[in-house]
Each structure stands twice: as C-alpha cells, then as structure tokens.
C-alpha cells in the first residue's frame, strides 16, 4: 500500500516538500507539479535532499509544468521520472491513495 504525495509549491517558498519528505513512508511516491517542480532542479539548496530521497521513494515530475518554466530535462536530478497528465492519472490509480500537501 503506497501513497502518492503531491507537491505543488516551490520548496523556496513553502516547506510542504520538507514536511512530506519527513513523513512519507519508504517506498511511497512523490509527484512534483506546478511550482513544486523547482525542487527537481540539480544544484540547489534542496536538490541534494531530493536526490537522497530518490533512493527511498519513487520521484516524479509533471513534464508540462517543467516545460512551462523552461526547465530542461538536463537540469533535473537523476532518478526523477517525468510524466504527462495521462501519467499523473495513472499514478493515482497505481497507488492506494493520494495526499496533496497544500
């Protein structure tokens, strides 16, 4: 039984990603959407923390939101899978529940 955690705010604006990483069980999935995708960038203050989480959680980012912000795939932390809206829907069906960290 795994939960899909959804983060929609920048880690440089709110601490919802921090809270999520602290409480999300090993093996659960974390999806970055909207401004939350800023957390997916390499070489930032939170980049290392998220890169470490890739070992214990399944990490995803919503590709259209990366494109909208001009963040290329080469700028993304290794271990983050990109999904489109169909993939987003599929993730919610493959996990046993969803939690939006607003």
């Amino acid at each position, binding site marked *: 039984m795994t939960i899909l955690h959804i983060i*929609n705010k920048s880690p440089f604006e709110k601490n919802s990603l921090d809270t999520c990483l602290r409480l999300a069980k090993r093996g659960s999935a974390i999806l970055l959407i*909207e401004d939350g995708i800023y957390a997916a960038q390499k070489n930032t203050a939170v980049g290392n923390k998220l890169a470490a989480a890739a070992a214990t959680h399944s990490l995803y980012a919503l590709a259209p939101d990366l494109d909208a912000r001009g963040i290329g795939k080469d700028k993304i932390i290794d271990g983050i899978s990109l999904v489109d*809206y*169909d993939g987003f829907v599929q993730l919610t*069906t493959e996990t046993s529940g*969803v939690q939006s960290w607003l």
Partner: protein
Amino acid sequence: MKFGIMVSAGPYTHQASDTAYYFTEAALKNGHEIVRVFFYHDGVNNGTSLGVPPQDDRNITTRWSALAEKYDLDMVLCVAAAQRRGLLDENEAKRAGKDVSNMAAGFNISGLGQLIDAGIQADRLLVFGD
C-alpha cells in the same frame, strides 16, 4: 476508477484551476469516472459567467462549462463560499435581492455535504489548491 476533484483556489491565481482541469480531462479521456468537481473557498470563482479574460488567454470558466457539457460532469460550488464571494444562481440572487445572477453553464450551487459525498463515492479524492 472513480475520482472526486476539489478545487480550492481561484482561476488566474496560481495554477490549481488549470491543473485540476487538465487532470479531470485526462481522467475522462482515459475512461475513468469523475464523481464530482467541487469548488470550495476561492475556487468558487471558477464558476462566474461575468469573467471576460483577454481573447488570447484561456477562458477557465467556459473551458469547465464545455467539459461539463461533453462529459455530463457534476460541478458544484459550495453555497457558503459562493454567497460570500458574490457567486449567485437565479434563486440565490432573487432570495438576496440582487439584480443579477452569474452562474456559468454547467455549475450548480449546493452544500458541503456534496464534497463529503464525493469523498465517499470516489476511489480517490484529489485536492487542487494553494
């Protein structure tokens, strides 16, 4: 699978209304069922028929209306949130002595119980907001 959608942020604010719309559309295209889209807090502003966004911008309200018509979506505004923000259907406008109603096509006003009901009926309840 059955989905319930809750939108708690206004249109053109951040991105929640857009994400909710694209998720809902993708779920329907993939053959899933949307039990209800419930608009709460500032999310009720998605339902105003009086918005006139620039022609080169998306019209979030009419986009919802079109999706509701195509898929027979149940779109509900929370009555208390709607009244506070001046979102009135004809009945509410008459009752409050207002000279205009502004409920866009496909939107209905109902109570918070409809959110709870969506949560019970749906396999997943997704919240989009700030």
